[in-house]
């Protein structure tokens, strides 16, 4: 292994020894509750929607944002590992984009902490994701009369890279949870019991708190590696390209996803990933940064065992001793955090895209 984690075992043992009383701590964390709806500009969001589903935003025009962020999967990945750009695979599970506009940090490793404008650029330009030279993208958009009108109507003037990086985030603001039983207060009895466990005995709220159900901080929960990252050269090459670009030492020998380590390059952050939101979980299986757990019951069992095996694992994790009924209640609560699927034409661009670019007429005479 390239980078070994050599500290943490004693701390973990100490934490177990203390036997923290979880239920008494719920009040210490930002409370869970409904998310505020975001105001959006309709013309800009509509433009962003057309861009999001347009394959011409990738280098070889082979994939759109929606190839990894699939609407029926709560705008997350269908497969454990995202497909990535043609010619390679990927090494992580694309997270749901529903409510992404409420986040303060993006990517499983938290490497973007600014805004969705930067995230949009990152996803479009990264060579194993969409591999787009945005200068070519801009000229493609200018060649499509529908875009020329939509950019103008949105107040952006002519199509430009900068406006794409604004319009897609505007569209993403429309992707927020709608009608989740938790938000509407229609919780079943089982879900109510689950919520109590969530805040108490199971201790989920220590990381999954606030209206997004995440502290947006990095934690190592010991999720096992997905060996397909390394056994499938398509995925491994994407991982290597990522690791090279991030400046991760000894990347050729790395047999694990370093997670937040790639942001700090400090050993204490090895294997940490940003706490994911729990909203829309009903649609976004499989779970975890690498899709290693297929069902919510599996996730609950994982935490009930005290998480996975890692010397750098968070000391917050320890066996929970949940009964079979308690586990079911917890799953019922988790399921109540999902709203209606956002798969209608309100959210998904359903019109066809032109199969070729029309020539600009009278080209010699008009300004480019």
């Amino acid at each position, binding site marked *: 292994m390239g980078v070994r984690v050599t500290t943490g075992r004693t701390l973990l043992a100490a934490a177990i020894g203390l036997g923290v009383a979880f239920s008494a701590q719920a009040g210490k964390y930002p409370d869970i509750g409904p998310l505020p709806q975001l105001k959006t500009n309709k013309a800009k969001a509509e433009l962003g929607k057309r861009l999001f589903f347009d394959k011409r935003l990738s280098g*070889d025009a082979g994939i759109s944002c929606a190839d990894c962020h699939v609407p029926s999967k709560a705008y997350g990945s269908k497969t454990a590992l995202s497909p990535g750009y043609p010619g390679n695979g990927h090494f992580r599970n694309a997270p749901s984009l529903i409510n992404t506009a409420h986040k303060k940090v993006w990517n499983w490793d938290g490497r973007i902490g600014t805004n969705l404008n930067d995230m949009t650029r990152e996803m479009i330009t990264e060579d194993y994701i969409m591999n787009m030279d945005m*200068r070519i993208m801009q*000229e493609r958009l200018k060649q499509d009369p529908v875009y020329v009108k939509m950019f103008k109507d949105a107040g952006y003037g002519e199509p430009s890279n900068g406006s794409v990086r604004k319009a897609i985030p505007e569209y993403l603001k429309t992707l927020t949870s709608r009608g989740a039983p938790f938000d509407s207060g229609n919780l079943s009895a089982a879900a109510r019991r689950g919520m109590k466990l969530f805040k108490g005995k199971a201790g989920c709220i220590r990381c999954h708190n606030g209206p997004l159900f995440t502290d947006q901080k990095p934690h190592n929960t010991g999720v096992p590696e997905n060996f397909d990252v390394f056994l499938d050269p398509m995925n491994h090459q994407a991982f290597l*390209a990522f690791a090279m670009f991030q400046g991760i030492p000894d990347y050729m020998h790395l047999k694990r996803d370093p997670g937040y380590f790639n942001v700090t390059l400090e050993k204490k952050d090895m294997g940490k990933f940003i706490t994911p939101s729990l909203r829309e979980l009903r649609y976004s299986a499989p779970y975890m940064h690498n899709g290693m757990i297929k069902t919510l019951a599996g996730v609950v069992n994982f935490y009930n065992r005290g998480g996975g095996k890692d010397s750098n694992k968070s000391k917050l994790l320890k066996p929970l001793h949940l009964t079979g009924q308690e586990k079911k209640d917890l799953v019922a609560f988790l399921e109540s955090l999902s709203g209606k699927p956002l798969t209608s034409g309100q959210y998904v661009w359903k019109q066809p895209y032109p199969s070729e*670019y029309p020539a600009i007429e009278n080209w010699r005479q008009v300004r*480019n």
Partner: protein
Amino acid sequence: MKKMKFAPTMVAAAVATVLVAGCNAQATKDQAGMSAGDKAMAAAGAGTSGPPPLAPLGPPPIPPDNQQTPEKIELGKLLFFDPRIGGDASTGCSTCHEPEQGWAWAEDFSRGYPGTVHWRNSQTVVNSAYFPRQFWAGSASSNESQARSAAKGGVAGNGEDDIMEARLALIPEYRARFKKVFGTDYPHIFDVWRAISSFERTLVQRDTPLDKYLLGDKTALSEEQLRGKALFEGKAGCIQCHNGAITSDQNFYNIGVPPNKRWEEDGLAQITFRFEQYAKGQTEEGYRTAKSDWGFYYRSKNPGDKGKFRTAPLRYLAYTAPYMHNGVFYTLEEVVDFYDRGGFDEEGRTTLFPETKSPLIKPLGLTDDEKADLIAFLESMSGEEILMEKPEQPPYAPLFTKAELKAAQEAK
């Protein structure tokens, strides 16, 4: 790596400008439209010295820091034909430099990366080893830098260093071959360009009828070709620029080639046209108004260089149609007619930059027989077609075993 190409492009442009300023300081001071080559020719006309004569091709120059070895050449051949040296693993060197299309691409514009079309004609790799300048505007000075630029260009290979290097690291045969040739544990991207260049330096042709003739075999050229040679060196004036062993003075001229009409009719070509203006550092006004390829101007940023391109070598041209930087002429007949008219096509179209057009280009008054003789001579600059079987792509294999991964998992 992210495709953040703005800064590197600016650096490259700045470097190019410095280099070019050094070469062209004189030209900038006097006749704006005349390049160094034009001036040399003008001086030649005044009787000081003539252009270098046609000469047989010697062995290609080998850079001291990239010596040829059989293992390196063999590795370079594998890489040249491997589409994984590109963005989506579909577009490698041979994609646009196809052996059966003259080690070039038999359309006006090179085919380009999927989802794009290029905006210039793909040039043959054959004899590229001899050229101190590569690409139509001379923007690379070695095979090594040409290979790198082509593999990475947005409408060519669209590859990034890290993903290409990562792919090669996961192909055991490449790991072994790079280790043997370059001594590295994993392939390094700069060694990819070195190996490809070594292979390209074997794609030379030195036994054309012209070479044989120049080496003393007076039967190597027909009567017709000999008459064509006399025209080439005399009345038609071709030798003013197409001279020496490589049949190119490697200078830049505007010979009057008209813009390719595809830019008026083809949306995909219009996209690339604007992208190139943007990518090559045009001014805002230049981007808005350009309607043809400004050529060497993009590198020199000297208005006197608009529409100028590097003199194309004539060797191997029997296999490399269509011709000119934008492939507007599909036959040698069209090319000769174009020069005979003084740089106009059959519709009377010419460069959009008449002010930079070389004074060397003027109507030639060739008869039909003379044109036929000239073409026959041009054909003597090509020998047998160079063809070869494409090598099989070495397969990927996982770098680690499941047991190694399990052990690493246990050790976490």
